[in-house]
């Protein structure tokens, strides 16, 4: 299977830089691995395949961060939540393009992608969520 990217976090973010939300799926048991990893934690298979998700879902839990680590202080207050994707898995991420006080559990959200690359290690581009 030459040419298939390894099932790693690094590959996940390489796909993000191509504006794709990609997850690993276990061919043996069907489990979706998000984050992708080289070994299915349920059936121990390494027979995996990449699947692209649309990245739409509902907000399951959120917080408004006021006290932030140094590299995020300029953005505070900002919203981070866990989104339950219609395609199955959950994914945490920032929620943007909506006022923090308007955010509600259960609201519809869809994934989008930053174009700018962070300057600090590991320089992974960030995905985020926004109202559709």
């Amino acid at each position, binding site marked *: 299977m030459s040419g298939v990217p390894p099932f790693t976090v690094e590959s996940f973010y390489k796909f993000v830089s191509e504006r794709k939300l990609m997850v690993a799926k276990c061919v043996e048991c069907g489990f979706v691995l*998000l*984050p992708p990893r080289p070994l299915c934690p349920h059936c121990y298979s390494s027979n995996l395949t990449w699947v692209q998700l649309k990245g739409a879902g509902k907000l*399951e839990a959120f917080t*408004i961060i006021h*006290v932030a*680590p140094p590299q995020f202080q300029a953005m505070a207050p900002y919203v981070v*939540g866990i989104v339950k994707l219609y395609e199955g898995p959950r994914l945490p991420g920032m929620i943007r393009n909506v006022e923090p006080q308007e955010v509600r559990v259960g609201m519809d959200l869809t994934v989008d992608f930053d174009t700018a690359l962070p300057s600090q290690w590991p320089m992974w581009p960030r995905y985020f969520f926004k109202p559709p």
Partner: protein
Amino acid sequence: MLGQPLATIVSAGLSKFGAREGLYARELFAEAAREAYDRCPNLNPKRDIKALFVGHKGESFEHQGHTGPTLSDWAGLTPTQATRIENACASSGVALRCGIFAILSGMCDIVMVGGVEKMTHRTTAETTEFLAMASDFPFEQWHGLTFPGLYALMATAHMQRYGTTEEQIAMVSVKNHYHGALNPKAHMQKEVTLEKAMSSRVIAWPLKLYDCSPITDGASCLILTKPEIARKFTDTPVHIIGSGQASDTIALHEREDLTSLKAAKVAAQEAYKMAGVKPRDLDIAEVHDCFTIAEIIAYEDLGFCKPGDGGRLVEEGATKIGGKIPVNTSGGLKSKGHPVGATGTGQAYEVYLQLTGQAERRQVSGAEIGLAHNVGGSGATATVHIFRRG
């Protein structure tokens, strides 16, 4: 029928918790060791203690790793074998379990377990970043999540599913500050009102300043022996009769349920079964209230009430001294303080005091069976220990 002792606490020490200016981990640990040695005059530490297991979360705080031998040296134990354990905020709960393993293996008759953290010399932003290292880097830290943020996610999920209110969550803080005001070693020895807690500044909504444990310096230790020899060292032994530990996914989003910590439930089942104890048999418990919502979830995970009833349990006063199951008589992490590496054995120290009748103004009269629940990070590690008066 109660379980057999796994190991026995013959002595314990706790440094004053607080902002201990100019004192670093080594000096704080020496302070805790001093108390443990003073309580146990028949012990010759260097000769008798065969291993030290010490919980310490982060070398970032002091730019100091290799903490095991450092603390062994400052506690006067060199050349005793010394091992640092890192499981985030459960580091010393795990160190305690390692000590039990050492005793049960037969390789050591007497061990010291403990923990330490020096935190207050750093800025809040730096401390927030260092603590966040115990969460998932690629999917949590990288997207701006913090520890208050992770527990805030659990809080909004709990509020959504069960109708738990911000007021009920804040009542944990009011209760634990009431207890902490009775503890001369607590960091925050003052009561707070519900109004003050509710109006404090937001850290990670819905969690406010008074929902968060403070940044604290401190150290704790226990001296464990095999049960048969405990009375050579003390007339008031405390037996450890149950021990459980479990793990969960490092990232919160991979868990089936955001309103419960599965690792804590699994560890509790293991400890209860080993101890032959049911939740209703407990006289006291120290639980991991790093954030107020965590104590509410702990009530449910430990079986003190049904899932979803934790908010009502604190509201009706059941977990206050005088209630049916007093929780965090020490003041908990919230009021006593949370020097993260020191917390697990610090909880065991409070249980030890309660079961030996040494808890002074906060003594629960006749306490015979106690529990300590220590959580690492957002719940990827949990330990539960059950103790009984010897």
